[in-house]
């Protein structure tokens, strides 16, 4: 007979095990219960409960915080799929509140205004898993070192422009490939250059992949964008403003879900992309002022 003391919960394998379940799927930003139901119907594997999608946060300015508790509860009650929510970088009290709400995943996110410019949350102290953004391998491994169970690219949230997600995904994949061909004696130097924990650098060098799933986010606006990120090695896709800022959210959601799974069936993606209505209006990241970029938040 099993005694309750044999029961294990909140351990790394239970957190990353849950992240494994999301692979091949699409996680959609939603701001209302109705949007959450549309996302679930369209085949989302999870929703991210927010007060405003990144494009609106960008437009409105001001301080962006954790979503209203009533809103999160309303979204949790509306769907059966997992509900994620964002906490500000370093704001462990927001994360503690989200854990108390039994949110399924916490995104320590650069989309919100950072609460700590020096430190990210110590994620080992939580039973709920965390996802964190990164721009390169060093940043990914720092977050994993702090206990993140899932990594995503930052991209440039709310821009509707895929260029930054591609840059970040290529940076991570390229650096992983590089590690696999380095000699054992070169790894400490590499860890120093990456600013990453040595043991994690060794692990990645040996396995040729991150020790947690690797998803993409930031700027996904079309089915072809989702296919691009999957072909570049992302195991699942987050879509923020791209769905509910498009002309026909329901169709866009379904099309992006199909394109994420069948990312290498180009005839299907062509068919999915026909008559979708207009995608969200995008921003040119190249002409964006540094201070307007969300991806530079965190380190």
């Amino acid at each position, binding site marked *: 007979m099993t005694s309750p003391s044999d029961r294990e919960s909140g351990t790394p394998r239970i957190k990353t095990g849950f992240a494994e379940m999301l692979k091949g799927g699409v996680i959609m930003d939603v701001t209302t219960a109705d949007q959450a139901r549309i996302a679930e119907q369209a085949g989302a594997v999870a929703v991210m409960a927010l007060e405003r999608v990144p494009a609106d946060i960008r437009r409105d300015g001001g301080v962006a915080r954790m979503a209203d508790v009533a809103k999160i509860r309303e979204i949790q009650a509306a769907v059966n799929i997992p509900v994620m929510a964002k906490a500000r970088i370093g704001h462990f009290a927001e994360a503690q509140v989200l854990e108390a709400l039994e949110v*399924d995943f916490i995104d320590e996110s650069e989309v919100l205004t950072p609460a700590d410019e020096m430190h990210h949350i110590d994620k080992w102290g939580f*039973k709920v898993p965390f996802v964190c953004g990164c721009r390169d391998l060093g940043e990914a491994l720092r977050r994993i070192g702090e206990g993140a169970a899932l990594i995503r690219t930052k991209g440039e949230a709310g821009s509707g422009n895929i260029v930054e997600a591609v840059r970040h995904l290529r940076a991570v994949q390229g650096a992983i490939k590089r590690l696999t061909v380095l000699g054992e004696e070169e790894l400490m130097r590499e860890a120093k250059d990456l600013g990453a924990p040595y043991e994690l650098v060794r692990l990645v060098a040996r396995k040729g992949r991150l020790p947690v799933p690797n998803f993409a986010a930031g700027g996904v606006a079309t089915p072809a964008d989702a296919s691009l990120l999957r072909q570049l090695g992302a195991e699942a896709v987050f879509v923020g403003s791209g769905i509910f800022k498009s002309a026909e959210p329901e169709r866009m959601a379904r099309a992006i879900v199909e394109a994420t799974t*069948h990312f290498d069936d180009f005839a299907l993606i062509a068919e999915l992309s026909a008559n979708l209505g207009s995608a969200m209006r995008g921003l040119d990241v190249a002409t964006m002022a540094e201070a307007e970029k969300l991806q530079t938040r965190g380190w």
Partner: protein
Amino acid sequence: MREDGDRKTPKARSGLRIGVLTLQGDYAAHARALARLGVEAVGVRRPADLEGLHGLILPGGESSALLRLMQRWSFLEALRSFSAGGGALFGTCAGLILLAREVRGIEQPCLGLLDVAVERNSYGRQRESFAVPLAVPVLGAAPFDAVFIRAPRVVALGPGAAALASYGESPVLVRNGRVLGASFHPELTEDARLLAYFLDRIVSRGAPA
């Protein structure tokens, strides 16, 4: 009595063609688990991919997302024919939900190949996900390291299904002839005994020559 399916030589498995439904979920973890037993997984994304397979694994994931992706390609009908034609099926977590006869508390289609009724997320949200050493008599005396993630609960067992393991009051491993379902995730652990049981005691027995 030989209790441990894992003792069988890999040679007996080398001719098996095993698919993993690769639409959404932890299909990669299942492919890695099969590889550890010397079996190369066939990724199944279209009903045509089922051709020539002896067995198919339905992974964990989100059952509503899986259904959405399956319905577009008439996968429910294809899997019922696959089963009727002698193909063996093993569903873990969301896979168990898909195989069930009935999903309670929510309007959701299912395959009806495993004579059980299930309830989604019945053990709680992710914070409540857990692992326990589980007694599984068909795998021998050593407990099985069972990982439950937002797991479905088997709330009723029909006459066609047998419980091979239970946790608390609820069956968590059930078999219905050539169909096996688990509330937990054997693919997330190093213990290969349950997958070996599926391959050696279900797929290999009565698999089309």
